[in-house]
């Protein structure tokens, strides 16, 4: 089974990397970008086919390691 965990910065947390990317896009002439926030994506392969179990396990993984919940939110998507 395949799944994806997406980790993003909480709103209000300053993201200097996102800001730099935003500036670079502007200097490349990519117009209309008003804000960039950088995050992380984890593509994960799992044993078994139980979706509920997979979600529980991935939430555990995200809480324990993949995200720092002081500054980040995460979303778990079991892709099947």
């Amino acid at each position, binding site marked *: 089974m395949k799944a994806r965990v997406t980790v993003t910065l909480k709103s209000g947390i300053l993201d200097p990397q996102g800001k730099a990317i935003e500036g670079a896009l502007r200097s490349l002439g990519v117009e209309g970008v008003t804000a960039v926030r950088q995050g992380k994506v984890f593509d994960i392969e799992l044993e078994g086919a139980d979706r509920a179990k997979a979600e529980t396990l991935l939430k555990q993984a995200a809480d324990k390691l*993949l995200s*720092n919940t002081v*500054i980040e939110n995460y979303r778990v998507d079991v892709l099947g």
Partner: protein
Amino acid sequence: MKSAVLVFPGINRERDMARTIRLISGAEPAMVWHTEKELPVGCDLVVIPGGFSYGDYLRCGAIAARSPIMEAVRGHAAKGGLTLGVCNGFQILCEAGLLPGVLMRNENLRFICRDVYLRVERSDTPFTRGYNAGQVIRVPVAHGEGNYIADGETIARLEGGGRVIFRYASPDGMIDPNWNHNGAINAIAGIVSERGNVLGMMPHPENHVESAVGPTDGRGLFAGLVEALEKAA
């Protein structure tokens, strides 16, 4: 002083730290590999040195913070044992939940490697008894992620409890955005735990202890720890 210096893959300041401890305390620290589950018996001080544990993968200090040895460090700290984390060590302590907050990417996005001035906020801690409150010391920093942040409530708790021990300052001790190199909230360079026995700081006091190399302002921290432990014994 019986001390342990933890070693993780990718750490590179452990020998500087061990050298300083040896120089100032006269005792050889034990080098403890991250897969160990226990600290040496009777260990008074645990030091997590700087470097780039696990190549800063995922988040600085995130993987090291979940190493087997960290359970033992948690136990040591819970008993009131002195614990010092410098640079990556500070990041590891935050990731392990032993100190609050996070060290984010420096505000100017640059890796900063230079001497900075720190204002010592208190002298009544085991880590700072070698200094006077308000004293300014010169020590080096070398980090890309030293921009301390925490939520407003945590900052209020830290400030209210006198837990900010070091702040980036001008040479005459003024707190000024121009001297706050990495953009840390309230120019925070070092904080202690609620009980005051765990210190995390971004600068490297262990690198300014010998006059042959330059200033020796870092000595006070280690000399103070030796004194605090002798007094407690």
